[in-house]
């Protein structure tokens, strides 16, 4: 009896805050994150008979939540009418020969790049920088690096071409890096 391994009465106390934090960094909107977490628990509740016990209760709930997040991006991708071609803020980081300008060339951060950071301040600024990205740039960044999807899956989900994808992901990285250098390193 796999269902016996589920304890729905304890889901809220055990997982709701963690799932909410997980969702919030991915969708950057608290009301939306609440909705997704709520839908996650309700879907899990409805589908509890299909729980086979292959994974733990926790990873089963995270999988449901992750799918809800990807669904949200998929729907949003279809709704966004945004010119992908054309100018972007990050174009200004390069001169006419497409080399870094003196002001926008990556500076020396003086940190160990193999080491993850614990600073709460850093994560606050990272979130703020992520929010500043254009919607599609944010979508591809989250799907690629936080949800670990590959470019083909992302293109399919968002209905974009692969050449658009490479432009979007590159621009997202350019802007996030520049925003962190400006607001965190040069604090």
């Amino acid at each position, binding site marked *: 009896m796999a269902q016996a391994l589920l304890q*729905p*009465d304890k*889901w*809220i106390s055990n997982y*709701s*805050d*963690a*799932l*909410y*934090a*997980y969702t*919030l*960094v*991915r969708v950057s909107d*608290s009301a939306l*994150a*609440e909705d997704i*977490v*709520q839908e996650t*628990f*309700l879907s899990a*509740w409805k589908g509890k008979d299909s729980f086979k016990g292959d994974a733990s209760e926790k990873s089963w709930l995270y999988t449901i939540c992750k799918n809800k997040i990807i669904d949200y991006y998929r729907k949003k991708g279809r709704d966004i009418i945004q010119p992908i071609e054309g100018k972007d803020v990050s174009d200004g980081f*390069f001169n006419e*020969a*497409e*080399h*870094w300008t003196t002001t926008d*060339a*990556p*500076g*020396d*951060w003086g*940190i160990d*790049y193999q080491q*993850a*950071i*614990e600073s*709460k301040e*850093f*994560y606050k600024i*990272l*979130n703020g920088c*992520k929010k500043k990205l254009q919607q599609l740039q944010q979508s591809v*960044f989250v799907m690629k*690096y*936080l949800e670990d999807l*590959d*470019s083909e899956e992302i293109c399919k989900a968002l209905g974009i071409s692969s050449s658009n994808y*490479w*432009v979007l*992901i*590159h621009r997202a*990285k*350019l802007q*996030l*890096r520049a925003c*962190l*250098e400006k607001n965190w390193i040069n604090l």
Partner: protein
Amino acid sequence: MRFLMISCKKAGFLLSKKEENKLTWLEKMQLKGHITICSFCRRFEEQTGWIILNAKHAHTHSEATLPEEVKTRLQNLLTD
């Protein structure tokens, strides 16, 4: 050798393609050549890699909690 020279903008673009092993032989040579001589693009690669490393775990550093009224509502729904 001119065909091996690429711009910083192109190098950054190719770095994303490299993550998925999508570079052609020529692009691999171009990127390798560029990164060897350009310290800014080396930094760009290191810094963006580091940002991604941290972004993946950002939720574990979050203090955000689901509002109590939502928890109560959900708890009632799940025990009915």
